């Protein structure tokens, strides 16, 4: 057996073991999700039962039909999508330049600001709702999407800045210097060199913000009135089966429906999360 074949064989077995490992891991991780899936496909209105099975005895798609026909899911989806896209765009628009200067420029107050920003996270924000209301109410932003976008972008701003600054730090400054010598303007430098290199970090940050907005319900139910203005997460919250009312299977079905778009987006953009650096020919 040649050395090459031996190596290939070893890799084959190694990878097979790895596949087994990940399949088991995913299966274990997904148990609660599969539980929800099974509840949502079950014809009996119950979250609990003494003989639970992953494949329900009385199979039905009725709950999904109800989610889409009786509830304003498409409307909520639209609201969520508008909020998510605007928040991601504005957050990135604000965070990229800020992260860039904090990474590249030396100026008075830089270090102090960076450290203070992190420390802000230690504030227990249980009571922040009232203050935020006091802020957006005079602006007339209660019960408007702009109000929510403002809150969401502000909440994610520290994370966006810090996260992208971290990645900018890893791009060697020599790359930019070389380009500058080649006669690139500042603007070209950023758009042609830095941003492509930072693409993975931008996508990672965008995903984080997207998921935050998608799942946020506290601000959404407090500041939005009327079911037609809800986001998906807020709508889901209102569908929540409580002791008094609601149906568990419909709620379970809705939970899964809400999380599906995120997973699809995540799957789709993963390709772009690979660093431009590793693919490019930059050698330290």
């Amino acid at each position, binding site marked *: 057996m040649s050395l090459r074949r031996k190596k290939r064989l070893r890799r084959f077995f190694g990878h097979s073991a790895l596949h087994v490992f990940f399949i088991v891991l995913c299966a274990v991780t997904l148990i609660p999700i599969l539980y929800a899936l099974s509840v949502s496909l079950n014809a009996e209105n119950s979250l*609990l039962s003494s003989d639970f099975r992953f494949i329900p005895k009385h199979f039905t798609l009725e709950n999904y039909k109800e989610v889409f026909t009786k509830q304003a899911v498409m409307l909520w989806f639209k609201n969520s999508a508008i909020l998510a896209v605007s928040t991601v765009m504005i957050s990135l628009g604000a965070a990229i330049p800020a992260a860039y200067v904090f990474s590249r420029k030396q100026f008075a107050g830089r270090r102090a600001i960076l450290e203070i920003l992190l420390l802000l996270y230690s504030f227990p924000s249980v009571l922040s*709702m009232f203050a935020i209301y006091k802020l957006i109410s005079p602006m*007339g932003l209660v019960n408007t999407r*702009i109000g929510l976008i403002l809150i969401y972008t502000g909440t994610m701003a520290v994370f966006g800045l810090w996260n992208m600054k971290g990645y900018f730090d890893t791009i060697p400054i020599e790359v930019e210097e070389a380009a500058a010598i080649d006669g690139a303007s500042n*603007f070209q430098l950023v758009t042609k060199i830095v941003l492509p290199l930072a693409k993975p970090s931008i996508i990672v940050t965008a995903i984080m913000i997207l998921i935050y907005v998608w799942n946020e319900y506290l601000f959404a139910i*407090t500041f939005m009135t009327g079911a037609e203005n809800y986001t998906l997460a807020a709508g889901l919250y209102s569908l929540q089966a409580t002791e008094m009312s609601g149906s568990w299977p419909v709620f379970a079905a809705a939970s899964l429906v809400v999380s599906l778009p995120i997973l699809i987006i995540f799957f789709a953009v993963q390709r772009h999360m690979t660093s431009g650096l590793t693919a490019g020919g930059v050698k330290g």
Partner: protein
Amino acid sequence: MKRWLAILLIVCLVTTLFVGCSQPEEISDGTVTITIWHDKEEEVAAVLQTELERLEPDIVVKLERKDGLTEALKLVGNDPKAAPDMYFFAHDKLGVYAEMGILAPISDFIDATALEAYLPMTIEAATYKGEIYQLPLYFETLLYMYNRRYMKDDKVPKTTEELYEYMRKTTVGGHYGFVEQHSTAYYSAGWIHAFGGYIINEEGQPGLDSKETIAALEYHKKFVEYMPSEGEYATVNTLFREAKAHSTIGGPWLVPTIRESGIDLGLAPMPVVNETGKAIAPYSGVQGLHVLKVAAGKKHDAIIKVLQQLTGDEVGIAIAKASGCAPAKLSCYDDPDVAKDLMVMSMYETAQNAVPMPNIPEMDVMWTVTENLLVDINMSGKDVTESAKAAQKKALDLIASMK
């Protein structure tokens, strides 16, 4: 160049933030819009909507669903731009809002004599410091429910000792004679009341360590031993729905799902505690309409019309038919359909000795304290008297720190 990019971004940001801030203006062709917040199920909301649509075109009532209603009202309660004109909710928060100063008494809008036609219990619930803040529509109390497959109608325990005997005999092999949410304040209150105790009285004085309360907790404990240790609603209700529990104490909201699961449901009066001769007396929750101060002045006449529309018998009867709730107005029970409805009538019976949930602000802290006390006694097996004393102290501390 980079600078231009930055400036452009700032401009974009600022414009996106402030474009579209303008609020929709009110239509000013003589119609008045009344916004009512609620978080009720669709059936009830639909009845209210149909009833109030009769006021059109002069008054347009917008029933808006609002989840997290109680918290939202604390924020926007006195903000004319964001607050609703009225809200539809249980009576137990009205003390908080009245103290905050966001509620207008309904006697400003309707004649007090109109309220004489209501069940006294519901008016008591709506009254805080001598003022009536709610127009009651219907109420809920807990009911004693049993599975007729196991319990014959004439064998239903009439006293708690009979119930205990039944539990001892039948609680085997995954079956339970009786289950309830034993360690929550709402459910245990019925037992405490039957002993003459209370969680908190009208003066805001907690009664967790009173002789009566301790006796009730001590007595109740022996029943808990024959119930599953986890007593939250999902467990309790599923046990009953799966015919594993022969009887339970639960709210009217359970009935539809119980019937759906094919249980032959029976309803009976609450068992009488042998020692005191009093029946288990649960809390009742009265649902009704509250008027916010911000709307009271400028929409005075429209609010009068809305309230008057809802003092009629029709709305109470319609809600009772749609969702099995017990109307607050006495004359609704003259309706033959209502009088035939077993569930409505059972609640009406229970209401004779039910205690309205306290509506004072102090009650807010009592839920947690009482539940911690019950957990200590029923789940952690701690000494009743000692735990009750500690809980009473905690309650007093917390009430003191409310001010």
